[in-house]
């Protein structure tokens, strides 16, 4: 399937290992990603603290660019971008008079959003459009024996009314389903649907660190070998801030955290280098050894 692709800033900035992992996995599973190289930042929830109409206009600009290229589905790998885009799209498609107002803001740029774009996250597209049966046929390195703690991140879960949960009520179980499809074992633990703490990490670090310590420790207590997340911001929080969170909590945790595409790619036969598994702050070596993923 062909998608307009918005990688978000973090997949090439804060977590630069993510972008190459995504493009490699997408090519392997037959997703054609047409990158929107003139799209702008979605605002990541932060610009909404300045001006809502601005956020709606900037996202409508991206949707209009996708429409111009004849693409009706906009796929992202960043949960936060997905959350903002889905909220704005919901608002614009539900309220034609407001869409007209936003289009006034775009007119001078020669753009108009017609309201035809659908927003999705790579995790959703894999389950809903490609299908888990298809994914299973591609697994060449099943991740048997690995216990995985899924960590969703807020913006693929809430608020449900803008995220298509009416149509797809089990979107809160997709990580577990993918983990099982790859041959690994999902574990349930307190915290999988909670907040990673990233949005307050620069404002109230001690609260953010407590969240990181709570979730990584809870996953460890339930016997998880790794955590997996579809959100790069959650990854920064759970991986990069884990040493500091661990210090603040006064206990060693050492919980490796994988991006979802890295885990999928590891089962599809990509090697350590291609998936960037050596670029994390918390070593993924236990996963590399257990999964038998090629060191390249």
């Amino acid at each position, binding site marked *: 399937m062909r998608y307009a692709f918005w990688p978000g*800033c973090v997949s*090439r*900035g*804060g*977590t*630069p*290992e993510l972008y190459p992992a995504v493009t490699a996995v997408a090519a392997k599973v037959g997703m054609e990603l047409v990158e929107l*190289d*003139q*799209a*702008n*930042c979605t*605002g*990541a*929830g*932060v*610009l*909404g*603290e*300045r*001006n*809502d*109409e*601005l956020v709606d*206009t*900037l996202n409508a*600009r991206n949707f209009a660019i996708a429409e111009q290229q004849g693409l009706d589905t906009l796929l992202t790998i960043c949960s936060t971008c997905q959350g903002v885009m889905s909220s704005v799209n919901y608002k614009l498609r539900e309220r034609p008079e407001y869409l007209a107002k936003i289009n006034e*803001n*775009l007119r*001078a*740029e020669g753009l108009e959003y017609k309201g035809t774009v659908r927003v999705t996250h790579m995790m959703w597209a894999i389950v809903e459009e490609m299908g888990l049966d298809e994914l299973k046929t591609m697994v060449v390195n099943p991740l048997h024996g690995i216990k995985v703690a899924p960590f969703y991140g*807020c*913006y693929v*879960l*809430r*608020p*449900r009314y803008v995220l298509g949960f009416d149509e797809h*009520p*089990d979107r809160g179980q997709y990580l577990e389903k993918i983990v099982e499809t790859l041959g690994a074992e999902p574990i349930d633990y307190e915290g999988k649907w*909670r*907040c990673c*703490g990233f*949005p*307050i990490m*620069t*404002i*109230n670090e*001690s*609260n*953010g660190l*407590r*969240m990181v310590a*709570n979730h990584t420790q809870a996953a460890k207590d339930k016997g998880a070998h790794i955590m997996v997340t579809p959100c790069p911001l959650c990854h920064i929080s759970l991986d*990069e801030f884990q*040493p500091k969170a661990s210090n603040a909590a006064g206990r060693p945790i050492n919980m490796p955290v994988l991006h979802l595409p890295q885990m999928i790619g590891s089962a599809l036969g990509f090697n350590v280098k291609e998936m960037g598994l*050596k*670029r*994390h*702050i918390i070593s993924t070596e236990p996963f590399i050894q257990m999964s038998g993923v090629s060191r390249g």
Partner: protein
Amino acid sequence: MSTKLDVYRFDPETDQDPSRKQYEVDLPEYGTVLEGLLEVRDAQDGTLSMRCSCRSAICGSCSMKINGQSRLACKTLISQIEHEGETITVDPMGNMPVIKDLVVDMDSFWDKMKTVGPYLKPEGPEPERENLVSNDSMMRLAVAMNCIMCGACVSDCTVLEVDKSFLGPAALAKAFRFAADPRDGHTEERLKSYVEPSGIWDCTRCNMCVQACPKDVEPMERIMDMRVMAIESGLTDSRGARHVEGFSNSVKHSGLLDEFALARKTFGFPKWGFELAPFGIRRLLRRRLPPIIHKGISTAKRVTRIFERLGV
């Protein structure tokens, strides 16, 4: 239809630890979780304690965790949550101490509500007749006025789980209701107190409260409204406000986020260097440094024009 309930039980007078009890009730297709619990109490186990009153989602008494999420038991139809599992789990609200079974101590909820000054404080001489308030102003407030103080948002708040001092979604939504009221004369003073630690900048935007609220108050959105109001009224000397400012400038001039510039702006000079040095060194060792020279999109000027057109 037959419904299984798995209920949290705790009586501090007789129990050392909480336990769970399972019940089976027969309810009509349109039955609610509250009706199930009342059936348990009336016919099977009279010792079960809970709060409830109106049974019409008006009084806000019967908020509890149903299948892990805070909801009003009287508003939750069994048929609505069937797909979540065969057995319905029922627990007391979170972030508040349990008194007995499903009854929690809401003192901290009410104390925080009082802290934000939940009443109009007009300024100047008493008006000769009723205040005239525009429809738009009232519509903006009406959302927050829907609050029935059930506590569901506070129960699910992820910040309160790690920091009891946070004012929390209910009190802050109430704060918005008065800070944004054109009849109030103390908006600036209110905002000054809400930007203090434990106030609006401590919300982590997790949307838990938006999801939990049975009245569509969307408390998190009201907190975001107050962040906008605080910045617009010049309360910009906080990490939160500087973060928004830095983010906005970066996108305005390049179309994309410049993570380095944002860190410099948020932490201020020269603190950002000290704060971020350990992270930078670790990243360097993992070949994980984000691009030091920021590259925007080639049509960034068009984005700048959109910002300017909207006065940002």
